[in-house]
């Protein structure tokens, strides 16, 4: 049992997502999937579900799968229903004495497949209460189709459908707060995490999500060097900046109790997160100071209300 986190012991477990997949170098998705699957106890089997996404087309291109566990991909918008179906089959077959052992059900979908097109399917599955984990690897746009905006794309970010021009200044709307919406489903466990440090936060939240009975949700920030336009070796750095600026706070909600997982020693200004990324470059042009101010205001307001919720 992985009660005390030990990175060395964890990485010595047999891998469940093998190398050789076709994700871009430096992509957050691969490390997130490995990190979540690593939280499975060695003896437990899993069925992994993917929504159509960068992850799916890169990890299961016929005839090679990168997954050591059973895996199913069906479509873009139905990964939660798909996971429900596998879980329903497990229950039925278990009842009839046709499957043995523990099998866990874990879905990975991008923000497009979660915040947008797969939202109904996700809401339905959470409400029905399937024993499953739904992981959103959130790279804040439709990357697989070439960086189009989603409802997860942050304010002012440049995407191919929110370009910057003489009039356009990137995305006009703020990012949808999906984790909060999932919490409102009264599920036993929901959390936000990111691939930072020694992966302790990601690991322990994954472990809780996998081994808490019922529908659990993880929203994991997944930097994308191509879509966010930063050098690929900066994955850890960008993730850390998202957390230290409170753009992406780490927290969990267990049985309705909100808990902050991390408070930055020094809350960094939001521009520290924005500056290294090409998708926000126009915000730093002369005359656009108001954009950074607005972004800061939004982050501060969200952070304050989170602190309040967490009783911090």
């Amino acid at each position, binding site marked *: 049992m992985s009660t005390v986190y030990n990175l060395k012991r964890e990485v010595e477990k047999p891998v469940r997502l093998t190398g050789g997949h076709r994700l871009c170098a430096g992509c957050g998705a691969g490390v997130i999937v490995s990190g979540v699957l690593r939280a499975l106890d060695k003896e437990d089997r899993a069925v992994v579900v993917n929504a159509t996404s960068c992850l799916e087309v890169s990890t299961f291109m016929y005839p090679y*799968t990168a997954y050591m566990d059973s*895996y199913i991909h069906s479509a873009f918008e139905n990964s939660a*229903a798909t996971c429900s179906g596998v879980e329903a*089959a497990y229950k*039925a077959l278990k009842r009839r004495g046709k*499957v*043995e052992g523990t099998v866990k059900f874990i879905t990975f979908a991008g923000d497009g497949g979660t915040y947008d097109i797969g939202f109904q399917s996700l809401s339905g599955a959470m409400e029905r209460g399937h024993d499953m984990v739904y992981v959103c690897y959130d790279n804040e746009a439709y990357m697989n189709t070439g960086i189009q905006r989603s409802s997860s794309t942050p304010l002012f970010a440049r995407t191919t459908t929110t370009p910057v021009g003489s009039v356009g200044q990137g995305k006009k709307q703020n990012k949808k707060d999906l984790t909060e919406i999932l919490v409102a489903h009264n599920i036993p466990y929901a959390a936000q995490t990111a691939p930072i440090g020694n992966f302790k936060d990601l690991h322990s939240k994954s472990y809780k999500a996998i081994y808490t009975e019922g529908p659990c949700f993880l929203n994991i920030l997944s930097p994308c060097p191509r879509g966010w336009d930063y050098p690929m070796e900066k994955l850890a750095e960008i993730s850390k900046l998202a957390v230290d600026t409170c753009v992406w706070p780490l927290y969990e909600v267990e049985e309705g109790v909100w808990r902050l997982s991390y408070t930055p020693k020094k809350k960094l200004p939001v521009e520290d997160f924005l500056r290294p990324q090409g998708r926000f470059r126009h915000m730093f042009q002369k005359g656009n100071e108001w954009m950074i101010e607005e972004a800061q205001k939004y982050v501060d307001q969200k952070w304050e209300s989170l602190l309040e919720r967490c009783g911090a």
Partner: protein
Amino acid sequence: MSHRLSGNEAVAYALKQINPDVMGAFPITPSTEIPEQFANYVANGEVNTEYVTVESEHSSMSVCIAAQAAGARSVSATSSCGLALMYELLYVAASCRLPITLACVNRALSGPININHDYSDSMGARDSGWIQIYAENNQEAYDNFIMAMPIGEHLSVRLPVMSCMDGFITSHAVENIELLETDAVRSFIGEYKPENYLLKKENPLAVGPYDISPYYMEHKVQEAEAMKAAKARILEVAAEFAKISGRSYGLFEEYRMEDAEFALVLMGSSAGTAKAAVDKLREDGVKAGLVKIRVFRPFPGEELVRALAGTRAVAVMDKSEGFSGSGGPLFAETRSALYDLKERPHMINIVFGLGGRDLKVEDVEKVFGRLANIAVTGEIGPLYTHMGQRSKEEIV
């Protein structure tokens, strides 16, 4: 045993006898009674199916796909807009070679919204890779549903099966029907034993790849071969079914076709009306006959050629438009099948009954009248017409 049941009740009862592993349930008129009735079986402990009350038909088909891939026998029921919402997933189910069984209670597609019968829903899904079997009445709806799994699950086939009946006309009308004993049904269907499935302990399985051009076409050809192979399997299962039920089924039914000069080709409950018209005309010495298509996918083209070879004129009656601009889907298939025949009968297409408009015996008689006229004059007139249009001059 003889019972009085509606078509929906008959299918729900078949489902109870089958006791599937997983059912995806979502309401839509006129198929709603199937999941409702089944919910009662669940509530009363008469089945131990995992009954998943999803938030849409899109999810019910997604649940079925995943559950079947996981090794569970999965079923659902839907109509019209529900089937349309499943559209993308129908292809996924077939291409993953998952023998799901779907009760399709046919209803016109929106728009405008209409709850009555025609085939616009399942005809829209005719190229999705699903086997499609159509029932004329409640008995056939029950029988076809019981035959669906042994057909779809067979190793030579492994394709999903849509077991169709006419909305309201069949789904809601109560008729006397013969039910099999549950033990007989269970041994006829047997256990679902897929070779590979997600929950198999010995070896994990990956389903639903990103498939690239060097492989995609091979996979599609395998799927096409499976659809071809389904024909023989459908007949094999029908022969087995005849042994336990005494009721025989083919790919289509030929009614008074032995010496027929004039024939109709149509499907579903309209066959009942057409049979009455054929009988009446036969009394008057008209050599009328009827071919009722039971299996639309795979399409029994070669067999139809044999059945229609001796006729002089044929009317294909489509209960869906199709919007091809040149006739309904049943017409296109039938006409194409007859192309290789040296002496082809004249052939016309009549689209009728859209959105549940009634077909009367007199309407069918008029069609036969037109066929007789065509045989005499050699002039077919308009190739493709709509029956009983109020605003236009009647052609039929």
